[in-house]
């Protein structure tokens, strides 16, 4: 299996005044292509710092991080920006869509920063990504005309449009009700089934049942790394939910 992410003894220290805070105290793991990994931990466990590091938004103080075979630690800010643009798709808790902008234009955004993609190809890929998340009929809807679930689907389409090596989801269901959360999970499982690599950071322990692997953090250490052999189907869980209950 191709290694997408390789962390070797990653440490990240922050200086807060006189003190040094150790957010990550030596983290090592490898994520291969096609895995659906949930990363869990209570607040303060270092999961945000780990996510920032994985997303190339931050660089570790020490240790080696290889993303798709490329060493990230020594990269400059602009180099990391280009790397994010080509290799990573972000999905955020609060969607982070551009206001007053249509779904297609929102999805086009990452490709706007990639000059090798022409305008026509950009639009085609954005439409394809929106169709694949089930929003083929809402291409021209503006972000303020959509529900939370729809906005998150647009955000997922935006994460897919650059065909990234890994999709990083940060509490992607955190702002959604139970039913919509499951709908989004169904979508993630579908992407997983299509062979995409997904890292889902959450504090909700239930979600571990739907991923293929679960990593737990505490105080900057990995305390548990288990492969889930009995992956539950989110679609079944969704069907089992009482209808018209939460909507």
């Amino acid at each position, binding site marked *: 299996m191709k290694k997408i992410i390789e962390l070797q003894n990653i440490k990240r220290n922050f200086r807060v005044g006189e003190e040094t805070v150790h957010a990550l105290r030596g983290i090592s793991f490898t994520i291969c292509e096609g895995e659906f990994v949930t990363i869990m931990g209570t607040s303060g466990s270092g999961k945000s710092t780990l996510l920032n590091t994985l997303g190339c*938004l931050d660089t570790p103080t020490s240790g080696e991080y290889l993303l798709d075979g490329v060493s990230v630690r020594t990269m400059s800010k602009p180099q990391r*920006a280009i790397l*994010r*643009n080509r290799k990573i798709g972000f999905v955020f808790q609060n969607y*982070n869509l551009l*206001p007053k902008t249509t779904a297609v234009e929102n999805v086009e955004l990452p490709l706007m920063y*990639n000059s090798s993609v022409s305008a026509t190809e950009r639009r085609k890929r954005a439409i394809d990504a929106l169709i694949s998340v089930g929003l083929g009929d809402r291409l021209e809807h503006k972000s303020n005309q959509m529900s939370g679930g729809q906005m998150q689907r647009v955000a997922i389409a*935006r994460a897919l449009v650059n065909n990234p090596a890994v999709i990083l989801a940060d509490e992607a269901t955190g702002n959604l009700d139970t039913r919509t959360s499951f709908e989004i999970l169904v979508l993630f499982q579908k992407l997983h089934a299509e062979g995409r690599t997904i890292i889902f950071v959450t504090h909700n322990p239930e979600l571990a049942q739907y991923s293929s692997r679960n990593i737990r953090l505490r105080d900057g250490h990995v305390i548990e790394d288990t492969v889930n052999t009995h992956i539950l189907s989110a679609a079944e869980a969704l069907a089992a939910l009482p209808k018209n209950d939460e909507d």
Partner: protein
Amino acid sequence: MNGTNLFKIALRALANNKLRAFLTMLGIIIGVASVIAMLAIGQGSKRSIQQQISEMGSNMIMIHPGAEMRGGVRQDPSAMQTLKLENYEKLSEECTYLSGISPNVSSSGQLVAGSNNYPSSVSGVSIDYLNIRQLSVEQGEMFSENDIRTAAKVCVIGKTIVDNLFPDGSDPIGKVIRCNQIPMRVVGVLKSKGYNSMGQDQDDVVLAPYTTVMKRLLAQTYLGGIFASALTEDMTEEAVEEITSILRREHKLKATDDDDFTIRTQQELSSMLNTTTDLMTTLLACIAGISLVVGGIGIMNIMYVSVTERTREIGLRMSVGARGVDILSQFLIEAILISITGGVIGVIIGCGASFMIKSIAHWPVFIQPWSVLLSFAVCTITGVFFGWYPAKKAADLDPIDAIRYE
């Protein structure tokens, strides 16, 4: 990063905030429009003064005898007898920078024609005088070289003289008018020129051959002055130098002596008046320029607020792969787009306002192309200058903080 994409990104961002973009533009619009209108008014008045000056004559050079001290008393220059007819003849022969030269002797007195009379003066000049003063004969013709040679008793008169001496509207050509008992036949009437910028009536003239005035009217051998016309405006200075050296030689002045004549040029007059109008133009442009700067500060203000307001958006753009330089360019392009669009609208309004001033207030207005270019360049520079700081601030944001900014 490709420029077209950045341009599209900036355009979309502006389109999302049309009202804000327009309000930001307003400062630039007013600034540019007022710069153009003010410069147009300033240039217009300058031009109208220049036109009036050039109507007085073409590249005119006026030579007068200099005032001299006699026994400690400064004499009236018109009483000086130092400028002679020979001086005129020498200048006429030797000067290379002149397109025309004419002596000037004038005799004032009461003009009489039939039962009408009018106080005026007769100027004794050569034929070149018409070109030097930009006069033209409307009716009849100018007196000839032959008239000058024979000191013929002929004259050409201006419209004011015609109106006063021939109030019944009869044709003055061929009529005889008398000046100091000397009868002179009218051979031509000058085209009317009206009043000049000094308030002098340019039609109150009687032109006669200088020989006639010198020999028959005044019986004098010296000249009141010499009028000349330089070939071009730029050659005025060379012409003045040439005249000076010839006259000094003719008057046998030693190197240490002061000139015993004075030379004034039309250029001096126009540069003096230009100084005044230039001062006014600069003043107006400064006031308008201040409003342009205030407009620029408006851009900076709004852009600055907009960076804070759009922190999350900037964080998102960075997380999907925008580099700092992309963010910087986006905000700079937004600022420049605002100022250029404002500039275009400002140019249109400024030109419109200028034409309105022209048609309603009847002020002389002239829009110089460079003033449009200048204000346009200034507002683009304003956009870059005042857009830079907020854009830099946006580019320096940390994506981690920006994306989670509330």
